[in-house]
């Protein structure tokens, strides 16, 4: 069956999100992220998978993957920060969007975009971008925490302090500062 190659065993695919390394060596699980494995034209993919464990070795502890920015996106984010600090918000947004086109699935870029919205007092859009980041950040507690902190700040900006505190505590649980 042609899809057979794409589908790892049930046990592996059920668990792969949790213990990625345990499945190392097998074909990639069907619909799991396999970061870096199949980069496309418009995205180099930059989440770093944990190092695969040698056979027989104990699987490494947390499932965590860690999103990083590739060099191109990183340079663009730095440029966007400079622009935003100089009050050039539209330019900063355009620069972040360049980075986003290179790595559209990177939650860190959505957090950056949301932070920029917050700087322009657009809390509702910042909140949405935080939620977008969160949906992409599954498995990366640091990125999830960054998304929750953005959501918390955007809630606070709208006077929703109770919900903001809740979002903050989620962030702290995931990744204590």
């Amino acid at each position, binding site marked *: 069956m042609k899809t057979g190659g794409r589908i790892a065993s049930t046990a592996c*695919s059920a668990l792969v999100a949790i213990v990625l390394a345990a499945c190392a060596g097998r074909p990639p699980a069907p*619909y799991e*992220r396999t970061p870096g494995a199949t980069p496309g034209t418009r*995205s180099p993919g930059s989440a770093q998978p944990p190092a695969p464990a040698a056979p027989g070795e104990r699987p490494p502890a947390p499932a965590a993957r860690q999103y990083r920015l590739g*060099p191109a996106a990183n340079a663009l984010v730095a440029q966007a920060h400079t*622009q935003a600090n100089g009050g050039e918000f539209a330019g900063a947004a*355009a620069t972040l969007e*360049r980075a986003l086109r290179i790595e*559209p699935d990177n939650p860190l870029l959505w957090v950056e975009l949301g932070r920029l919205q917050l700087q322009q007092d657009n809390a509702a859009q910042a909140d949405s*971008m935080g939620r977008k980041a969160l949906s992409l950040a599954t498995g990366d507690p640091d990125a999830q925490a960054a998304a929750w902190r953005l959501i918390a700040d955007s809630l606070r900006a709208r006077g929703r302090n109770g919900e903001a505190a809740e979002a903050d505590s989620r962030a702290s649980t995931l990744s204590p500062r």
Partner: protein
Amino acid sequence: MLLGLLGVAAVAGSAWVLYLDLLVTRQFEGRRWTLPALVYAAPLELYAGLPLPAAELAHELERLHYRRVTQLDRPGTYRINGGRLDVALRPARFPDEKRDAQLLSIFTGADGIESLRDSAGHEVPVMRLEPLLIGSIFPSHGEDRIVVTPQEVPPLLPAALKAVEDRRFDSHRGVDPQAILRALWVDARAGQIEQGGSTLTQQLVRSYFLSSRQTLGRKVREAIMAIALDAHFTKDDLMNAYINEIFLGQDGDRAIHGFGLASQFYFGKPLAELDLPEIALLVAVVRGPSYYDPRRHADRVLARRNLVLKELAEQHVVSAAEAAQAARRPLGVSPRPAGAYYPAYLDFVRRTLRRDYRDQDLTEAGLSIYTSLDPRAQDAAERALERELARLDHVKKHAPDHSLEGAVVVTEPQSGDVIAIVGGRDVGYDGFDRALDAHRAMGSLVKPFIYLGALESGRYNAATVVQDQPVDVPLPGGRHWRPENFNHDVNGPVPVVRALADSLNLATVGVGLDVGLPKVAETLQRFGLERPPEQVPAMLLGAVNVTPLEAAQLYNGLANGGFRNPLRAVRAVIGADGKALKAFPVQVTQVATPEAVYQLDRLLIAVMDRGTGRSARPLLPAQLVVAGKSGTSSEFRDSWFAGFSGSDLTVVWVGYDDNTPTGFTGSAGALPVWAHIMAGLNERSWNAPMPDGLVDIEIEYPTGLRALPGCAEDRVSVAVPAGVQVQPKPGCGFPDNGNLTTTLTDRAHQWIHELFR
């Protein structure tokens, strides 16, 4: 008395001259300010890791009409040396940056770009090529132009114009009696009009007032105006006006004015980069853009160009050797006119901008408009539609005497960027734009939104068994609605995954009626359907009219994890002064939970692997994960396919303009177009992260029973909420009490939560 009459005549004559003077001066002054908006495609971003092989990179440079050379001598050239490509980038303006000409070295390997370096050898993290000019928004009278400053004009051009058209331009006062006499002499000998004797200034006046009739009165008027212009303005001003004004070609409704646009129109590159034979060709065209149309009368134009070259050598503008060498070169005209490539896309751009700008702003104010168009995606979409429709015409069953039509929209789901639009099979034709204006029944494209509503209700999951059985819905007026499956069969109990993948009408109507018409309508509207659909049962089988662009808006939310972003073609508008006027930033709104959309997307992947989309698989890379849905409206009037990978969403519609049945299902008509487009783009797999709280399981496709390899052949992988009870297939070795998945994941979740505590 006589004196009095003469006096009156003199006063009247002077007044007339003054009037003409005023008229032409105003025209001259005013002309400097009417600049059609220029529209640009998205620039190609270069960075280490971009999987673009050296050959494709060179192709992208050629698309921008960079010239391959052995020595980089000026902007707009490149050279290849093994895995190293050096390019002399042209100066470029982006919405957020003005960049000078510069050198860039690109190092490529088997996987694409490995590094970028500047002329000092320093690593460059990211660099974009200048955006491709894809057209302009010219006024309804059809005059299109790109205005150039004297600095952007190669010095050879005015020299050549003077040599061929007006030798005494620098010394005469607007008219040239010698030239007129000479022309008369030549004409008299030839017995026909061969030389006009008009100065460049006279030609300019003629162009301003669009008078093609050559009466004596007009000639006098033209001469007076030319003398007036010459008196008021410098020769340099006049030459620059001539270069920007003169008519040099026709492209449908669009009149090509000025050498700046003509250079793009015929050669696809800036005027500053033209070399001797190219300049000679444009100078040759001046005499009669229709008679000397290089795309239609190549031989005639070649002869005239070489005559121009000979003239230039005779007048020592160039050396005889240069002229002889240039005369050996081919015309070098691009096969298709630049700026007329993408009428359907430009149509969307114009409509977007008309919300914010008056027509006059767009056609006169010299705006630069930066769009999301990806020329590679656009080319892939055009090619696939043209080729597949030709094939379908050939095999069609109903064979009416007219040909099939189609439309394509391609987006990048995460940003909502529309990267390609094809409005019909005649892709260069600026007419009925089906992508934006064909309102057609969406057919089964509606089904995912029914199942999304079902998943959101919490009462359904991929393995839920639903009944594919006859449905009878009483309608007002004693009528009944009795839908049928596509092949009129009845399948009984089937899991949700199969009901959607095989596009079973009866099962889906059952689910839709259970979920409720209001819920289905609300789901469609949440995802971006602007008009509320009529809440009749037939809505469940797609009796909802949408344009291909609207279908793309709806599916974009499914491809983007339940986030809606307004589809956009325009990213930014920049004024003539270089200041940003308007930006259209990325915007997202969450319209469904990631959990529900993830489960649905997995069902849409089953469509491609098992269901009505499976015939696309052989056309796609084996490892590529894609999701999609076919749509066929009643009596095969509309054939749809909407589907996405991790990087792009493509919607294809195929049908007849007059709504005649096509005989094609979505899978037979639109799907092959879709598959060829997706195969032609460098797609990434769909790979949304599975939200916490969902688990992957395998179930038997026909029954929905939990299964494992070895105990069931016909399995499909789905995502369901952790903890749902899925009946195991007997003999598969699951624990008696039910569910392996649930136990495994519950344990795993507990473990993971402890880790983070």
